[in-house]
C-alpha cells in the first residue's frame, strides 16, 4: 500500500474521485481538513485550480491507453521554455486516466518552491524522484527545453537511474496552432511504454544511459509522426485506428 493511501478526508492523493462545491471547499480549507503529502503536494488545492488550468490549456489527447491506470510510471516529454507543456501533460493525464500527475522541476526559489510543490511539483533530485515512484505515483520528467519547441531535448541523465525502476511512457507535446502558437489545443500524444530491461540492476548507470537514449528516440519519433501529415494528423490517426481519445 502506498503511504499516501492511508490519508483520509475522502481525497485520494493519486486519483481524482470527486470535487467539492465552492462552499464545501472553502469550509474544508478554513478547517484544515485536507491531506498533504511529504513532498508538499496538496491534492485539494490542485483540484480547486484544475478548472482554471483546463480553461487556459486546452488539449487533444492521443494514446491515452498507454498511461498506466495503476502503479508508478515516469512520463518523459519534450518541452519548450515555460510551463505550458507540463501543464498540458497534467491535464491530458487527468483526462485519460483520472490520475494526478507529479512534475519534476519544483522551483528552488523560497516562496515559489512551496507554491509549486503544493501543486504537485517535486525537486530535480534523484532521491525525491525515486521516493515519489516508490509511493506509486505518476511522475512527469521533461526533457531539456528546446528553442521553438522543435524536437526532443537532452534526457536528464542524473534522474535516469531513478527511472529504471518503473515503466517510462514517452510523450510528445506540440502546440496546435501554426508556427508553434497555442491558438488551437495542444496535442499530447502518449507512446508505448519503454520498459526497463528486467535483467538490469535498478540504478545501474549503463542501463540508465541506454534507457535515456531509448526514451529520447521514442519522444523524437512521436514528435516526428506528429509533424508528418500522413501519420501525425488526426486523419492519419484515424487510418491507423488510434485517433485522439477525447477533445475539449
Amino acid at each position, binding site marked *: 500500500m502506498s503511504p499516501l493511501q492511508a490519508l483520509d478526508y475522502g481525497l485520494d492523493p493519486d486519483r481524482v474521485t470527486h470535487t467539492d462545491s465552492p462552499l464545501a471547499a472553502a469550509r474544508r480549507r478554513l478547517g*484544515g481538513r485536507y491531506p*498533504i503529502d*511529504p513532498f*508538499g503536494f496538496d491534492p485539494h488545492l490542485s483540484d480547486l485550480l484544475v478548472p482554471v488550468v483546463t480553461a487556459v490549456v486546452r488539449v487533444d489527447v492521443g494514446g491515452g491507453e498507454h498511461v498506466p491506470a495503476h502503479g508508478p510510471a515516469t512520463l518523459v516529454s519534450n518541452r519548450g521554455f515555460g510551463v505550458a507543456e507540463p501543464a498540458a501533460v497534467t491535464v491530458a493525464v487527468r483526462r485519460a486516466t483520472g490520475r494526478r500527475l507529479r512534475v519534476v522541476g519544483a522551483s528552488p526559489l523560497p*516562496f515559489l518552491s512551496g507554491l509549486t*510543490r*503544493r501543486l504537485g511539483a*517535486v525537486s530535480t*533530485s534523484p*532521491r525525491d524522484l525515486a521516493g515519489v515512484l516508490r509511493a506509486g505515483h505518476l511522475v512527469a520528467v521533461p526533457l531539456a527545453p528546446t528553442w521553438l519547441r522543435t524536437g526532443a531535448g537532452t534526457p536528464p541523465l542524473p534522474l535516469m537511474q531513478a527511472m529504471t525502476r518503473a515503466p517510462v511512457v514517452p510523450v510528445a507535446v506540440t502546440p496546435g496552432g501554426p508556427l508553434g502558437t497555442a491558438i488551437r489545443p495542444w496535442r499530447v500524444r502518449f507512446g508505448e511504454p519503454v520498459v526497463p530491461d528486467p535483467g538490469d540492476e535498478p540504478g545501474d548507470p549503463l542501463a540508465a544511459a541506454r534507457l535515456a537514449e531509448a526514451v529520447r528516440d521514442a519522444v523524437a519519433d512521436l514528435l516526428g509522426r506528429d509533424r508528418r501529415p500522413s501519420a501525425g494528423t488526426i486523419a492519419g490517426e484515424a487510418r491507423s485506428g488510434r485517433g485522439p481519445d477525447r477533445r475539449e
Partner: protein
Amino acid sequence: MRILVTGMGGEIGTRVAQYLEERAWADEIVGVDFVPPRRRLRRAEFRRIDPRDRDRLVGFVEDYAPQVVAHFGVYEPASRMSPASAAERTELCTVAALSAAVRGGRLEYVVVRSGLEVYGPRSYHATVPDEYVMPAPASPYGASLLEVEVAAARLRRRHGIPVAALRYAPVVGSHVPSPLGRLLRLPVVPVPACADPPFALLHPDDAALAMVRAIERRHDGPLNVVGPGAATPWQAVRLGGRVPLPVAPPLWGAATRGVEVLGAAVAPHVVELLRHGRVGAGARAVEILGLDGLRSTQQVLRELFEWADVVPIVPAREAVA
C-alpha cells in the same frame, strides 16, 4: 533475554517496557531513568538513577550485563528540561550506559532513539531524505541525536555489535511532553509568514512498537520511522481551531520569547520545523520492521487536538460557599 531500557520514565520508554512484557522472549526487563515510569508495569523492574550520577549508572548497568540495550535516554530540549540540561543528560546517559553495557560482557544488540532532526533543514538534494542522505543537523537537538548515533556506531566498529538507530519523526501525543505538541495547543500559534512547509509526525505507540520490532528482527543500521502523510503549520493550526500568527523570518526570536511567556518553551529544532518542515522517507522501516499500521500524521494531530483542554476545577470550599 536480558534487556535494559534506558529512559524508561518517559512516555515511549514506558510503552516499550509494556510491549516487551508481552513478549515471551524478553525474560528480564530492567529500566533506568531519573523519573519513574508513567504507567504500571507488571514484570519490568525500574531503578531511579539520574544520568548525572554517572558512577551509579555505570555500576548498575555493568552488574546487570544486558544482552540488549533499548536506548531511550535521549532527552528532547524544552520537553521536560532546559536545552542545556537535556543535552548534558543525553550525552552522559549514552556514554555511560553503552560503555558499561559492553563491559558487562554479554551485549548482543543495541537500538537507539534518534530523530529526523539529524538531517537538518530540507536540502535541494532531497526534500524527503531517506537513510542514505548524509546527516547534517542544524539544531542543537539534531547534533545531540547524531552524537548518540555516532557513540552507538562505535560499538559496531570496535566490538562488531549490530546497532540500529531509529530516526523518529517528531513524536506527539496527548501524554507526551513535547514542545511541538504544547505549542500547537496554544490559543495563538506562530506560523511562518512566507512559507508553509510539510512536516510529519509519529504516534508514541508506533514509536515504541518500532523499537520492539527492531529488537525482534535485529536490524542493523539507521531507519526513518515516520507516520504516513504530512501536515503543514498553517493547516495544523486551523485543524486544531487555533489562530495562526504569521511571523516574518527576522521576528522568530521575538515570537519564541512571546510564546514562552504564554507557557510553552520553544527550542530551536521546533522553530526549524515550523520554518523549513521536517519529513523523511519511511518506506524502509515499514518494510523491514513490518510497520503496516502506522498512524498517519493527520491522525496524530487530530488525537492531539481531541485531548481535553485543562479546565480549572472549582475548589470544594468555594463550591460549598
